């Protein structure tokens, strides 16, 4: 009965969204009755949001009560799963994650949009999502009459704190991409002249900041999770699933820079406005396309926990249904008619070039992800495009991006020249004494990071330092680049057989670390039994630094074997030990590695997120702190202070 209630709520949500969307259209064509119709539309949207959330709650309840007659629950949970993971299993696979995505979209649409046509357009998007869920990914399907007595387990890889944090973060990012798309569609719909349009542009900026914040979080957490959990010590593999989250992030990063340039008479520059529109549409398209690629199983991925061919086509239809009208409206509004009127000053060239670099990086990653597919479709045979390719094209692009990022902060060409010389000589000096894996990559990474750091340092001594939070985000990028360069150039590792009382010394950047295998232990938990190696880490002087406990886990529910690495995180380096196959009675294949500055990668990501949060909060803080209590700028006329949507608008 419970599952049917959920199913009913799902259908109700779709019907209500359809009704709300139609009312919006009616309000558009009958301006006389618009206020009344819009009120009704809003009421329906609220009801719809409640049904979406209700459907999600029902699915969660099915998980909590172990209702294995529901196929989705039976496939992704069992009675022994801890409560927290039962709830998190909700978004652990395709059907549930789409429901989660749509429910959050419904909720956030009501919170952020209080005016037409944004609300109505978001309802149309929800109808699309609802139909995809209902027709091809219904999580409430029953397994009748053969109800299994016990469910299959949640994939062991997913049974980690990462599942609770990473997917919601990423899906919220996707939800904001959807909201951004809706906002852009509304802006296009209303045309260029409306007063409401300016408020729309402002709100797009806010939504973009939110979206960027959560996408950054999603990518950082995803990489952190893969590093800790997948047991191969990689932090980025350029896997299609990773790319599906990374491409929208790159495009949103470029998009964010559309709002940087100063406005002309309170109006954004038309060129940047067009760029913002196109970037939003592309980012949203790439987010759906990425979901399609990943969910349909059309590309092979190591992280694909949910794929089946027929699901893909419905997502592809949704993608087409969104992009065709969007691109049509874009062509009508932006490609025509921009020529007349007074010539407006062009935006800074540097800004455009920087955005061009990021956009080319995003499209290159997209092409690289799709290329094996296209290659095979054209009958040219199978090829693989993987990490070595992406690294070799991405590193130069990052270098160019860093060049553009730092350029603006220097006051004069003389300063730039000094910084450039410094950013070349300093890394060269370092590289002379520390041989990297690849001289070229190392030089590019280090010089990019140095250039950005110099740019930051000059700002400390400059009297008119500007844009604190943008600089913090750039600093975060510099730190991430530094971390990525160090860990990929100076990682030292050894793969060897180890048993009790064997040891190995690894030297990393001038220090020696000895790993001594002390004993093998057995570990029993509720979900798995494991063999655990206890490895002592000794420093230069023979003093014990840490203990490391890599495990080989066998899951009780499905017999899956997993390697859980033993990691000691540090500021200057991580020590990473993973345990491979058993070789004989008491020796195992062990991989030891010292990863210098790897935690800086995520530290940089954290700084970027902090910068986004700070710039979202800044206008609020300024309003609170200003003595008169007045807002610094006049916002749109019908702003109601009590409404959350207007609170968002203040940003």
């Amino acid at each position, binding site marked *: 009965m419970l599952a049917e209630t959920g199913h009913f709520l799902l259908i109700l949500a779709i019907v209500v969204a359809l009704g709300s969307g139609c009312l919006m259209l009616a309000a558009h064509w009958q301006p006389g009755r618009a206020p009344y119709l819009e009120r009704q539309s809003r009421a329906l949207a609220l009801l719809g949001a409640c049904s979406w959330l209700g459907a999600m709650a029902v699915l969660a309840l099915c998980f909590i009560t172990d209702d294995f007659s529901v196929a989705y629950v039976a496939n992704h949970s069992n009675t022994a799963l801890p409560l927290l993971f039962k709830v998190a299993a909700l978004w652990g696979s395709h059907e549930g994650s789409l429901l989660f995505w749509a429910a959050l979209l419904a909720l956030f649409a009501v919170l952020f949009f209080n005016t037409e046509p944004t609300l109505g357009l978001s309802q149309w998007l929800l109808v699309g999502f609802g139909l995809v869920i209902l027709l091809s990914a219904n999580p409430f399907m029953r397994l009748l009459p053969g109800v299994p007595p016990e469910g299959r387990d949640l994939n062991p890889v997913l049974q980690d704190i990462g599942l609770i944090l990473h997917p919601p973060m990423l899906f919220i990012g996707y939800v904001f991409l959807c909201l951004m798309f809706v906002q852009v569609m509304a802006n296009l719909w209303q045309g260029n002249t409306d007063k409401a349009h300016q408020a729309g542009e402002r709100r797009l900026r806010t939504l973009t900041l939110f979206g960027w914040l959560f996408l950054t979080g999603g990518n950082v957490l995803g990489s952190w999770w893969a590093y800790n959990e997948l047991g191969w010590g990689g932090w980025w593999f350029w896997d299609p699933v990773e790319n599906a989250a990374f491409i929208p992030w790159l495009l949103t990063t470029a998009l964010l820079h559309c709002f940087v340039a100063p406005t002309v008479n309170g109006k954004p520059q038309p060129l940047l406005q067009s760029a913002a529109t196109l970037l939003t549409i592309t980012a949203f398209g790439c987010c759906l396309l990425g979901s399609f690629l990943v969910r349909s199983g059309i590309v092979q991925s190591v992280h694909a926990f949910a794929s089946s061919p027929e699901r893909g086509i419905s997502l592809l239809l949704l993608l087409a249904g969104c992009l065709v009208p969007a691109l049509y409206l874009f062509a009508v509004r932006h490609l025509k008619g921009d020529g007349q009127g007074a010539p407006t000053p*062009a*935006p800074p060239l540097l800004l455009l070039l920087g955005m*061009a670099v990021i956009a080319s990086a995003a499209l290159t990653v997209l092409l690289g992800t799709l290329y094996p597919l296209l290659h095979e479709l054209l009958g040219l045979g199978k090829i*693989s495009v*993987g990490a070595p390719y992406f690294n070799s094209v991405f590193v130069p692009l990052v270098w160019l991006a860093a060049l553009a990022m730092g350029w603006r902060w220097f006051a004069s060409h003389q300063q730039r020249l000094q910084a450039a010389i410094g950013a070349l000589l300093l890394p060269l000096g370092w590289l002379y004494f520390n041989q990297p894996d690849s001289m070229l990559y190392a030089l590019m990474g280090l010089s990019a990071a140095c250039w950005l750091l110099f740019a930051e340092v000059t700002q400390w001594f400059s009297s008119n330092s500007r844009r604190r939070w943008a600089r913090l985000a750039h600093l975060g990028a510099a730190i991430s680049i530094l971390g990525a360069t160090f860990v990929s150039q100076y990682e030292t590792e050894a793969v*060897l057989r180890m048993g009790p009382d064997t040891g190995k010394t690894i030297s990393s950047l001038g220090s020696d670390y000895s790993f001594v295998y002390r004993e093998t232990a057995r570990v029993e938990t509720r979900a798995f039994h494991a063999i655990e190696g206890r490895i002592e880490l000794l420093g230069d002087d023979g003093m014990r630094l840490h203990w490391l406990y890599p495990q080989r886990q066998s899951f009780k529910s499905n017999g899956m074997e997993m390697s859980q690495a033993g990691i000691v995180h540090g500021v200057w380096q991580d020590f990473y030990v993973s345990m491979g196959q058993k070789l004989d009675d008491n020796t195992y294949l062990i991989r030891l590695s010292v990863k210098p500055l790897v935690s800086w990668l995520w530290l940089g990501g954290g700084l970027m997120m902090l910068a986004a949060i700070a710039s979202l909060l800044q206008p609020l803080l300024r309003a609170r702190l200003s003595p008169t209590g007045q807002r610094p700028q006049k916002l749109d006329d019908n702003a109601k202070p009590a409404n959350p949507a207007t609170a968002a608008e203040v940003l």
Partner: protein
Amino acid sequence: MKLLFLPLSLVIALVFFSSQGTFAAQDLAGPEKLTLAMDIARELRCPMATNQSLFESENAIASELKAQIYLMVNEGKNREQILDFMTQRYGEQIRYQPKLGINTALLWGAPLLLFLGLALLSLKLTGWRPARMR
């Protein structure tokens, strides 16, 4: 299948690590050779696993191929020779970095073309001209 692979991988690992006595990964002559072998293992795709490199994969075939790489490095083969050998045996798909050819020209050219195209567009849209022509 899985049942079959476990003993097989054990056998291979044992052959790799014990029967050859003196030969194990750490016995490769010099750290350069070891790094080379690991780099090559990172550039090749495991034929069994879904999108994992040989270096990361724990499949039996991956262990075998890694042993093969170590052997070839020890024999003094260079990177290209080993990659070619693997490509011949397992097809173009095993290389994560596709070879530059007519079929991958677009792939390799794309970053440059995209950047040049977008940069030129930016120059045109901002009406930028070299100082001399202004």
